[in-house]
Structures are given as C-alpha cells and as structure tokens.
C-alpha cells in the first residue's frame, strides 16, 4: 500500500463523507459511485465497481430517516476498494479481490455509526454558540460555526475510513493467507450473498402491495427466459 494510494483514499473518504450528510447529497457518496471513483484513481475502476455494486445492494433498502444513523456504507466502499486494489499480488484469488475485501471490512461496519454520532454530539453546542453570536450581532460567525459542523463530519468520515482500513488490513494479512484455498473455491458462492440479502431487506421493509407476487412472478419469468435464450 503506497502513500499515494492512502492519500487518494483519505481525500475520497473526506469528499464522499461530506456529500453523505453535510454537503449537497447528490449521491456521490453512494458505494456505486465512490468505489469505482477510488478504483479509477488507483488504476483499477472495475474492482471498485464490483465492491461498490455489492455494498450498494446490501443496503439498498436502508433509510436514513430522522435522527437514525445508518451504517457508513460510503467508508466501507472506500476501505474495501483500497484493500482490494492495493493487496499484494497473489494474496487474494484473482477475480474475487473485491468481494473478499467487502466481507473483510463488513465486521467493522458499525464503527462508522460511532464516529458519526460523535460528530453530531460535537455539533450539539453549535446552535447555542450561534445564538450568542446573534446577540453580539456577529453574523459572520454564524457561517463559521456552520462550517465547523461540516469539519466535524469530515473528520468523522476520515476516522471511520482509518478504522475500517486498519481492521480490514489486519484481517487481510492475518487471516487470508491461511484461507487462500478455501476462498478461491468459495469466491463464486460468496458474491451473490449481498445482492440476495439486499433484495430480502427491501421486501421485508414492506410498503408495496403484493410485493411477494411481483417479486416471485418476475423472478420465475426472468429465470425461465434466461434458461431458454
């Protein structure tokens, strides 16, 4: 793992972390965008695309509603792409680098929630400070306080990314060398887990009348058509 790769990952992590909550929310932070972007910066966009698609599908039905803080899939995508692209040659079975790295960082998925909560708690003092600034008619300070809030989110994103990359790197170098044969054989069975699970989460979420019928009917139709043609 080179210093340049780490720097690109850190920049992507901050940039995407801001888009996730604090800035714009034009979905540049979604795994399907940020992972191939980092992959492209590191020279392997297709590895990033595979990691991003799998993570995107796992949390396709997750809603960031109200004060609920969802798992940080953005940083999971950044960390798994960085590990997949920079892993030593031959350590991971060819073609399955992305899916294995996704599973390596998944156990640390909750770290993002912790750092996000910390940032939001740190921001708790800002409205009060803004109130004091208004009393003193220092309106420019209101802007700076708002920007401080964004800085807290940027730091939380970076901290999450560092935690995920560290955890994933330890597993990659501590566990994977002992499981290379099994992982090579299990690769084709591992990648469908996340899309199927994500679909199940969407169906379980409800909200669609006769969802089982729509899902089951389409599944059978497409499956039969795929077999015939």
């Amino acid at each position: 793992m080179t210093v340049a790769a780490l720097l690109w990952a850190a920049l992507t992590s901050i940039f995407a972390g801001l888009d996730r909550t604090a800035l714009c929310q034009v979905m540049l932070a979604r795994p399907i965008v940020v992972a191939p972007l980092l992959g492209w910066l590191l020279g392997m966009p297709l590895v990033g695309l595979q990691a991003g698609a799998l993570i995107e599908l796992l949390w396709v039905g997750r809603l960031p509603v109200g004060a609920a803080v969802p798992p940080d899939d953005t940083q999971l995508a950044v960390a798994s792409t960085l590990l997949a692209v920079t892993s030593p040659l031959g350590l991971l079975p060819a073609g399955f680098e992305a899916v294995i790295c996704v599973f390596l960082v998944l156990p640390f998925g909750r770290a993002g929630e912790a750092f996000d909560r910390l940032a939001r708690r740190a921001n708790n003092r800002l409205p009060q400070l803004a109130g004091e600034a208004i009393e003193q008619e220092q309106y420019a300070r209101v802007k700076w306080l708002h920007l401080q809030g964004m800085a807290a989110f940027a730091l939380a994103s970076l901290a999450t990314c560092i935690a995920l990359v560290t955890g994933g790197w330890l597993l990659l170098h501590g566990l994977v060398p002992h499981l290379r044969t099994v992982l090579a054989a299990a690769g084709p069975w591992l990648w469908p887990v996340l899309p199927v699970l994500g679909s199940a989460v969407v169906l379980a979420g409800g909200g669609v009348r006769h969802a089982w019928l729509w899902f089951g009917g389409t599944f059978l139709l497409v499956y039969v058509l795929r077999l015939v043609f």
Partner: protein
Amino acid sequence: MPGCGSAVLSCWSTFCAWCSDMMSRVRYNRLRVLGATLWRSLTLQGSWSFDGMQSLGFLFAMLPALRRYYQGPELAAACRRHLRHFNTHPVLATLILGASLRLEEHRSQGDEGLIDVVKFKEALVGPCAAMGDGFFWGGLRPLAAALGAGLGLTGSLWAIPVFLLVYNLPHLWLRVLGLLQGYRRGYRIVESLQHWHLPDWTQRLKRLTVVLLAVLCAWVSAAVAPAGRPTGAIWGLLGLPLVFLLVWLVRRGISPLLIGLAGCLLILSGVQICLMQGW
C-alpha cells in the same frame, strides 16, 4: 409649445428608464437572494446535531435574505426565529425555505400575514419529512441503486452515470422547484405539495424497484447455478425460497449485517468440508 411636448416626452422616457432600472434591480436582488438561499440550502445538514438538528443549517440558508430584509434588533430577532429546532427532508426543505423567505419579506414590509412563520415551519416539517423520506430514500434512491448496481455487477461503468442521473434529475429539479414555488406561493405552498402526488409516485417507484431486484436475483441465481448439469436449473430456482427465507429472518429483527456475515461463514465452512471430502 413644441418645447413643452419634448420635455414631457423626455420626462416620460426618463421615468420609464427609471422604472425599468428599478424593476430589473428588484428582480436582480430577488434572484440573488433566491440563488444564495438555494446554494446554501445544499449545506442544510452541514451542522446537524442531536439538539437543534438542522436549525443552524436553516438559519445559514436564510441569512442572506434576512440581512437584506432587516437591520439591527429586528435582524437579531429574525435570526433567533430561524435558529429554533428544525428537522425535515433536506430536499423538500427548500419548499419551506422559499415560503419562509416570502413570509419574512412580507413581515419586513409590515404585513404580518395570516400565519406566523415559526408556526408555519412547525406545521410543515412533519409532512415534508414524511413525504421526502418516503419518496427519496424509500422510492427513488433504491430504484437508482438497483439499476446502477445491476449494471455494475455486469461490469459496465455506465452504472455510475445511470445511477447519478436517475437520482439527481428529480432531486435537483424538486430542489429548485420547491424554492421557487415556496417563494411564489408563500403559506399556500401546501396546495402545491398536495398536487405533486409524491406518495403515489413513491408506491410506483417501490414496485418498480421490487421488479428490478427480482430480475437481478434471477440473473444472479442463474449465474450461480452449476452449468452443464441437468439439475443445474433446478438448483438456481432455490434462489427464490432463499430470498423469502431471508425476508423472514429480517422481519424477525435479525440484523442484515449479521445475516451476511453468518452466510459468509456458512459458505466458507461448506466449501472447506467439500474440499476435505474431495467433492
């Protein structure tokens, strides 16, 4: 008297030029205020906190307009009004921002109006949050994600522009429209919100997402099914009951993350046993 006529004509043309200048200045100022509010609304959640939620972000977005409408103690009072607890969907918040701009503009001109801006905001945050969360997080984003991720799994880099366009075209359109409609209609924006029929669109988008995910799962199942064996096709069909089993587990409250990791361990154990047995 011809000199008098030309003087009147000259006065008239000067008056017209003055009016035109004033009109364009007023429009320019309004456009500048609306532009600044729209731009700043993109950072509405920048200082999100558990206490005030989007309160500071809302004030930050309103500040250019408030500084234009008020001065001195009135400005401080207006800022305090908008620093209160606020939380709604970030996209539909532009609708409340636009309407609040209009209400504050009227108030600065001495017209208190039918409804207080604070009460108006309190009344609208709930419906905007419910409709926005349902439409954007529950309908549009999963649809864009299913399309993008489906393309991504086939290895096509078109996944990225497709995802971004499907989500952002309605997203940015509703952001701009919300602000302009809110500003134009003031507290009557509630009628516009009803006319958009967002809950109906949410239902359609959700159904389309379920169909797309079914296509994706069928494709995945067919790809995993053992090729070249007569029973391979039957094995692939097991994907459907597997999805329903996972739905049952998720509905029992088991974390999807836990299910995913357990599934991974199960597969690794199964493969290890097969390798040991030489299958």
